[in-house]
């Protein structure tokens, strides 16, 4: 009789088998997942064709990626660039393309690539320019004391600061800027040009100017420019209409604005002209704060208390909210004055005030820049950096204020920006100086409007009175002259 050997009892209960197997499968699945996630070889381009001599095989491209993300028809910029550089390094008669030369050629290729975007706000800064920009934002620097505006395809020097370096050197309003230190400005990004104008105080920059039919080169000695951020007056002492000018949106803007507003309140202000003409923009949170001064919370539920909506590259959108603690001064009849040099953050505030219905916009169509740029450093600045448009922004009611441009990147006049409720072209008599009030027809229109409102006239009637005043002025300029400019605040 065979004896049955006794087996060791199974160490785990039978019911535990299936869960154990499942656990093992899950564990191995996770290990596999991690392996797949980290495995290299996806999304790499092989750089440089295998060396081929002409007369044999043609230059080859080892393209295509594992991910199958291969672009349409082989039109891959990286391959084209790499092949071209390789051909130049191996076959070019004119110069030896050493590593330094290859680098500068690559900077040019990058410039060309960005130039094809036809976005005047996107550019590449080479190491020298990047260095200059960094010095400017960090330390004390000098400016020339003049705005630069994009007027059509010309760069116009606008409003040299009285007594400032440009003024002392003989720069006059409406001079056309043609070159900076001998380098032509044509086709260059205005932000970059602005950076070239800045520099250490007491250094000289040579501005090539076209004035009418004359060409001049003016040496301008840079000096530290003290910024005036806010100016204010009780513009009409009888009707108690105040006037606050904000020149840019920076860290000091909100405190200076509140101080100005408080001072006007002490004088019994009953209506306000808020002047954003020539304000080129600035910090986003400054715009949030300033808009919040005028806009109360929860006044229009459908706008969700958004000051502005930011649209990111990946399609995501976020709303930036009102700051209710800034709304300290109550609600007054309000006019916002704008012109073609009101840009960016100025347009955010104008758009918000308009969309929440707390003010009337008077003046000229604004600049039309609803784009945010991000700076990207390359190799710690040793290879310069990028200035890239990375988000768009929309006013609370979500419409696009960016201007349109043609195939060459030139702005199409009459597109973009915020069109005022009452359009008043700037009078040719006005010296574009806030002190020159008699000739400032836009300001006068605003005062007429606000006086009518204070006299309890209806919106329609007040608008009509103001418009009639604006229209009886001599025609300010021809349509061709009203070209929105890209302003630059010198006041930093």
């Amino acid at each position: 009789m065979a004896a049955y050997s006794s087996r060791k009892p199974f160490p785990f209960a039978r019911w535990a088998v299936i869960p154990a197997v499942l656990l093992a499968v899950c564990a191995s699945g996770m290990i596999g997942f991690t392996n797949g996630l980290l495995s290299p070889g996806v999304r790499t381009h092989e750089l440089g064709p295998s060396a081929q001599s002409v007369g044999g095989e043609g230059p080859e491209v080892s393209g295509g990626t594992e991910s199958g993300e291969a672009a349409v028809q082989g039109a891959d910029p990286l391959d084209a660039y790499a092949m071209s550089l390789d051909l130049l390094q191996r076959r070019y008669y004119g110069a030896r393309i050493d590593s330094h030369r290859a680098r500068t050629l690559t900077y040019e290729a990058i410039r060309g690539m960005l130039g094809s975007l036809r976005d005047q706000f996107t550019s590449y800064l080479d190491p020298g320019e990047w260095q200059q920009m960094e010095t400017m934002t960090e330390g004390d620097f000098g400016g020339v004391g003049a705005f630069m505006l994009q007027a059509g395809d010309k760069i116009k020097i606008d409003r040299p600061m009285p007594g400032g370096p440009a003024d002392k050197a003989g720069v006059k309003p409406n001079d056309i800027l043609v070159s900076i230190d001998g380098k032509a400005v044509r086709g260059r990004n205005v932000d970059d040009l602005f950076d070239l104008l800045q520099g250490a105080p007491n250094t000289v920059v040579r501005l090539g100017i076209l004035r009418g039919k004359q060409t001049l080169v003016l040496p301008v000695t840079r000096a530290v420019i003290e910024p005036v951020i806010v100016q204010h007056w009780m513009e009409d002492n009888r009707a108690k209409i105040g006037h606050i000018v904000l020149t840019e949106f920076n860290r000091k803007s909100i405190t200076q604005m509140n101080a100005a507003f408080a001072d006007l309140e002490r004088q019994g202000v009953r209506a306000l002209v808020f002047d954003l003409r020539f304000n080129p923009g600035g910090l986003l949170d400054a715009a949030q704060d300033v808009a919040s001064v005028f806009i109360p919370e929860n006044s229009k539920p459908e706008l969700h208390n958004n000051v502005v909506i930011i649209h990111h590259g990946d399609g995501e959108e976020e709303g930036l909210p009102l700051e209710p603690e800034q709304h300290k001064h109550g609600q007054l009849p309000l006019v916002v004055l704008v012109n073609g040099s009101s840009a960016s953050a100025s347009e955010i505030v104008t758009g918000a005030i308009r969309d929440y219905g707390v003010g009337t916009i008077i003046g000229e169509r604004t600049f039309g820049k609803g784009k945010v740029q991000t700076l990207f450093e390359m190799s710690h600045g040793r290879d310069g950096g990028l200035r890239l448009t990375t988000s768009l922004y929309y006013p609370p009611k979500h419409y696009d204020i960016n201007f349109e441009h043609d195939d060459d990147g030139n702005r199409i006049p009459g597109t973009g920006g915020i069109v005022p409720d009452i359009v008043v072209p700037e009078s040719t008599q006005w010296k574009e100086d806030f002190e020159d009030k008699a000739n400032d027809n836009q300001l006068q229109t605003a005062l007429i409007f606000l006086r009518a409102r204070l006299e309890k006239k209806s919106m329609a009637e007040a608008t009509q009175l103001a418009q009639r005043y604006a229209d009886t002025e001599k025609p300010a300029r021809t349509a061709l002259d009203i070209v929105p400019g890209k302003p630059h605040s010198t006041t930093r």
Partner: protein
Amino acid sequence: MKRSLKRSLSLVFIAGAVLGGFFGGKMFGKQMRQAHGRVLAWNDSHAFDSALDDSNAEVPPAELFRSVLDKVQHDYVGSAASVSDARLSNGALSRMFASLNDPRTTYLDPTLYQAREEALKGSFYGIGAALAIVVTHKEDVDFRYLTVQAVMPGSPAEKAGLQPGDHLTELNGHWIIAYSVLADYDRALQKTRAEAQHHPADPSRQANHVVTNIRQGLTVSKALPLLLTGKGKPLQLTVERNGQAAPFHIRLTTGLTRVNPVTYQVLDKRVGYLQVRQFNAQAASAVEKALDGLDTDLKGLIVDLRGNPGGVKADAKSGVDGYDCALTLLSHLTPGGTVGILEARPGRRSPVTLQAVERPVSLPLVVLIDAGTANLSELVAAGLHDRRRARLIGAHTFGDDVLPLFAGLKGNGGVEIDTAHLFTASGVDLNRGLRPDIPIDAHLSDTHSDPALKRALRALLY
């Protein structure tokens, strides 16, 4: 038994499930990586990732380009059309090549590349001429002109009277700006000052004049498509010609001109006449066909290189390589040896040495040349002349020593790169051109009589 089988099967099953889990997970992980690849790729691009960057190591240029391309493709916000690969590629390459400031080294966008390729194969669109940028010096200033190198027979250019050497300075009233697009204002002003001496004008208006004309001008890259592509379009050109004091205008309508690269016939029953209009693959086989087994009873052979703008160095498979064709022609007409010199870099020269074919032509030779004989044609003429193999009859040649390398960029257009300079076997730079042994004062468009050809026949028959 049953139990152990059951157990084995269970083990196999469990093992299979576990392995399946592993590979399934791996596939899923790969998918995830591909979907979010751009995020990971950003971390891969060393140029932007400061944390990983070894602060002393230099980032390779290609990595810089790739990083920027990546940023533009994923972080830039603009209209979808503007971020197309084709536009980015075009923009990058145009500017990169323009920065070399070398009129003979240039990027060709897909349209121009195709037109150039077809022209090299004998189909000329546009005005039907070969053009090049030529540099001259005037009053200490470098002037660059878009210049006619050769005029194709039957072309709109020929009908309008354009000649080799003509400078095209305006197209439809716009300045053709042949200097580098990166030239600065000062240089442009210099040019205008020199030009203004032709036109007595108020000096203070010069600068304004310059600014206006540059703004409205056409760079070469904008002018060439209008001149070298398409058909049926009327154009007005302003031309400056040596020997004529003032510029003049011509009007023409673009068209398609087909050029037969090689023709051969026997003249007067006694002299062979081989006309080679272009150097390319088709010409090479036609030359071989004409010269292999050439009748040895002929009194002589005339090789007509008038109006032949030469050719390029290119991939053998492309059909447009002219260099080998030129060598083929030479190898049929000479007993081998050094026929010229190629300088691949300034100072680095090497001889062009040929092995002749089995039975090269040994008949007396005359080569016909004129102002439209350029580049490889000049190399051939010099190669035959220097060895006293042939006499040159006609007019002084163009004087173009640049051998261009022509290459496509696989869907991104192509490039033409100055890859070598051409010299005669005795070391004379071909940019001087060649003088004829027997000068004749006439050019190819004179269809009713051909004095140069007559003179060549006389030389061989009498």
